[in-house]
């Protein structure tokens, strides 16, 4: 599914990713954990195609396609979805309008028919219900005046609607209370399927109690320094990242 080979990235002369290798298979939920500044968010932005980053070496393949040669919107249509840590506000654009524009843009890019309005509304309503998103929230301008929890639920709603094949969750648990965390996690779990892979980026074990990963990778100084099963997350929770810092120093 996703294959990252020897990725070296810098921003304003500062090296952030330092020869990162990572493979995520179809149907897999991979968690990436690591201390602040280890390059987790950079990794998610580089996969999604944000400008500002200088790619010095390496490649990112999604089902064999070279993502680094594609524009962000092309990557989205190819199946990449990034649930933002800080979702952006789009004043004056109703969430519903935004969802429809995005969905139809992707369908068009893939050469599919656009959805009719009734079909579209049916799909949105079904997804919204599961995420406990009230209808009037869909009429409000996207993310404007939304609480932290509402913003994250809106991200998952978009994910549910766009049906991407590779989903990145960037610190989705940050700013969520217990109830919101449950709703968001259930939304994500409902989307787990043999055809879809997830990259779950988080600081804490907490989220991984709800979204149970198949693999856990520890990131440090722009590299994956250890990989293992879900028990690795518990180990980290108990011992912290101190071991890895020492490894680096040694």
């Amino acid at each position, binding site marked *: 599914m996703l294959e990252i080979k020897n990725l070296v990235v810098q921003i304003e002369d500062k090296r952030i990713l330092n020869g990162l290798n990572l493979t995520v298979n179809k149907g897999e939920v991979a968690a990436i954990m690591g201390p602040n500044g280890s390059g987790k968010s950079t990794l998610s932005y580089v996969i999604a195609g944000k400008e500002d980053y200088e790619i010095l070496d390496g490649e990112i393949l999604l089902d064999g396609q070279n993502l680094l040669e594609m*524009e962000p*919107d092309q990557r989205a249509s190819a199946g990449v979805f990034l649930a933002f840590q800080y979702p952006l506000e789009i004043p*004056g654009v109703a969430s519903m309008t935004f969802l*429809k*524009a995005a969905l139809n*843009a*992707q369908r068009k890019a893939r050469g599919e028919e656009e959805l009719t309005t009734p079909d579209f509304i049916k799909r949105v309503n079904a997804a919204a219900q599961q995420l406990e998103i009230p209808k009037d929230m869909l009429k409000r301008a996207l993310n404007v005046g939304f609480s932290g929890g509402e913003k994250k639920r809106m991200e998952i709603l978009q994910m549910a609607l*766009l049906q991407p094949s590779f989903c990145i969750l960037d610190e989705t648990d940050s700013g969520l209370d217990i109830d919101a965390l449950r709703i968001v996690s259930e939304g994500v779990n409902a989307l787990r399927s043999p055809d879809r892979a997830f990259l779950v980026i988080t600081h804490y074990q907490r989220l991984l109690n709800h979204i149970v990963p198949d693999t856990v990778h520890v990131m440090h100084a722009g590299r994956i320094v250890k990989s293992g099963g879900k028990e690795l997350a518990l180990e980290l929770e108990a011992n912290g990242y101190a071991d890895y810092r020492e490894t680096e120093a040694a």
Partner: protein
Amino acid sequence: MPAVQETIDQVRLIDVDQYKYGFETEVEMEKAPKGLSEDVIRFISGKKGEPEWMLQWRLDAYKRWLTMKEPNWARVSYDKIDYNDIYYYAAPKKNPAPKSLDEVDPEILKTYEKLGIPLREQEILAGVEPTNRVAVDAVFDSVSVATTFKAELAKAGVIFMPISEAIREYPDLVRQYLGSVVPVTDNFFATLNSAVFTDGSFVYIPPGVRCPMELSTYFRINEKNTGQFERTLIIADKGSYVSYLEGCTAPKRDENQLHAAVVELIALDDAEIKYSTVQNWYPGDAEGRGGIYNFVTKRGDCRGRNSVITWTQVETGSAITWKYPSCILRGDNSRGEFYSIAVSNGKQQVDSGTKMIHLGKNTTSRIISKGIAAGKSENTYRGLVSAHRKATGARNFTNCDSLLIGNQCGAHTVPYIESKNASAVFEHEATTSKISEDQMFYCQQRGLSEEEATALIVNGFVKDVLQQLPMEFAVEAQKLISISLEGSVG
């Protein structure tokens, strides 16, 4: 929602050439001799078959104009205009005053067809809801070539005709109101217009009548080196209502052309006038060559108690825009509103805004202005809100937002607030924002292209104002805005 999609589609369709109304029509024209003189004014007045008082009015204006100086306080710069290098009158040679559409030069009819302006009533009627009909007055250079639904409007007592015709047919009405809102001496461009105006629309709504359909005038400048000096006069008598739309386009040319219009609105007791403009004059090319100089004086007089005047404008065209549709709130409890979207791209310069002059008691006004600057353009909002000492209880709310696209354009807000009455409450809010790279990335991450993302964000930005426009115009305006911003990203 469909409108957003349409905007996006429209953006895709447009190629390098963004201005799609830039074609020229080959029609043999009769023109006044080039330049401005008493003889030219007599020529225009004679062509229109005007009464002596009208000619005298023009000549007085001309004498006054000769003593005036072009204003230079606006934030625009342009080469000096040579007023003697302009034709002040150009009319189709064949039948300049057609009685019916059959007499109109087919080339001109084709022009309006291309512009999508319906002139044949039977075609308009086919398949259109009766409530959505729009009566059109089509002004081609210096003359009105067709006015639709005149007969039907007359049944309701509504007068809708070219002003040159009204001067002959309703001289008393015209004489009573012409120049009563924008005096002949008002300003350099209004005075020039008073001397040489050629055509425009005249509307009179009798007491208690709700005008049965939208009225509109469509202005087209076609002839080279010709100025257009339109004059529009709308009177809403007691308790009446009218909604009026104005549209404008011009061919692409390397030279600049002058458009100096005067629009006067008068609302008597309990009357309401809604005046909407979609201004799409040729803006010039990317290097700033050509384009219309748009120096316009628009003013409404809420003369009666409880009267309402609303200006809504969508400005996307013109090389230079100098335009401040204003309201004089004379009647007690009267209300003035100004909703504006001004889009500038390339090297366009916009200096536009409004004046709300509170004279009567408990008068209210509301100003919502959205400026969008892209390319190397300069976009200025200039507005005055004033309360006379007798304007007890005057209230104003102003909101000016500017959106910048790219980093070579400028947005400026110049508000003037004057209050001579301690009870007046004026509020002013202003914001300037940029479409952030993060917003763009967010939209693109969801599958929208750069252009689609810009269209969506801009549509959101102008939404409050678009909602004020009549439905058909709102869709049109939305498309226009996207077209104007084409190529402004990346």
